[in-house]
């Protein structure tokens, strides 16, 4: 499991995020979820999932989420 998460990771700036949730739509590995607690602008931002459940792939750092994010709220990292 730990291994799975090592390929990539993302960081979401919860104050830049506008809660459009398009990133959640596009993530091929279902690595993003809605954070119900509102940010300062009153949106429910996206956040990376903490844990990878059984049968799921971890974040692969493919940057598809960041590619669609209208707010440039997502940074993507890839394991070296």
């Amino acid at each position, binding site marked *: 499991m*730990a291994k799975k998460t*090592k390929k*990539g*990771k993302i960081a979401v700036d919860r*104050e*830049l995020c*506008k*809660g*459009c*949730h*398009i990133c959640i*739509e*596009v993530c091929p590995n279902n690595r993003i979820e809605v954070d119900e607690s509102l940010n300062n*602008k009153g*949106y429910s931002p996206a956040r990376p999932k903490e844990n990878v459940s059984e049968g799921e792939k971890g974040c692969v*750092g493919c*940057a*598809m989420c*960041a*590619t*669609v*994010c*209208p*707010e*440039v709220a*997502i*940074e*993507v*990292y*890839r*394991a*070296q």
Partner: protein
Amino acid sequence: MSTEIEYKKVFGRPESLKDNPTHYCPGCGHSIAHRLVAECLDEMGLREDTIGVPPVGCAVLAYNYFNFDMVEAPHGRALAVATGVKRVHPDKFVLTYQGDGDLAAIGAAETIHAANRGERISAIFINNAIYGMTGGQMAPTTLLGQNATTAPRGRDARLHGQPIDISSMLAICGGVVFVERCALTTIKQIRKAKKAIKKSFQCQLDDLGFSLVELLSPCPTNWKMPVKAAWDWVNEEMVKTYPLGLIKDTTGYEDKK
């Protein structure tokens, strides 16, 4: 828990974008287009030599987000203003960023003639089939049947005419060397859009003539749709009226490769 893994940032904010959060609505295409323009300028090393001309439209405050010199033009006149700038600074990089109302309605004459003169300018054309900033009035590009606050029963060909394909009209002009239409609503198209923008910038650097990239862009707010539905609507409906792909290319770039 486990040994630290070394991570490298593979995606972040381009330098040509400031840190300011945008005023755009959630799911709006404008902010994606901004990022693509910024990435291209970064990658081509143009930021410090660029003068941008935003429209009057939702992107009127683009200078709050773009991290390069910008001058505001009156509604529709971005390409006339850009002509003035470019003729004074032929060695600088000049781009306009315009909405469909700005570029194709009130600014139609300025657009056509700057294009026809072959001004060495790159135009980014955000087609969201609506007047975003002023609250959802009909645009020249509004689809048939699409509702707008000034077309409450939907656009009707007899009354309002059909959606205008200004990009194809511009392609007829001699001074135009490159026109491509992309969408901002799938990963594939976003990547294509970036390529097209780069190519358009290259046309200017190579002094070839005028170029334009049309970007089909969602406006969830004025389409009165949830974000996802708006993105889908671009991919499923808008593309029928505005087919994606190359419209004109006399650059010869592909041939060279």
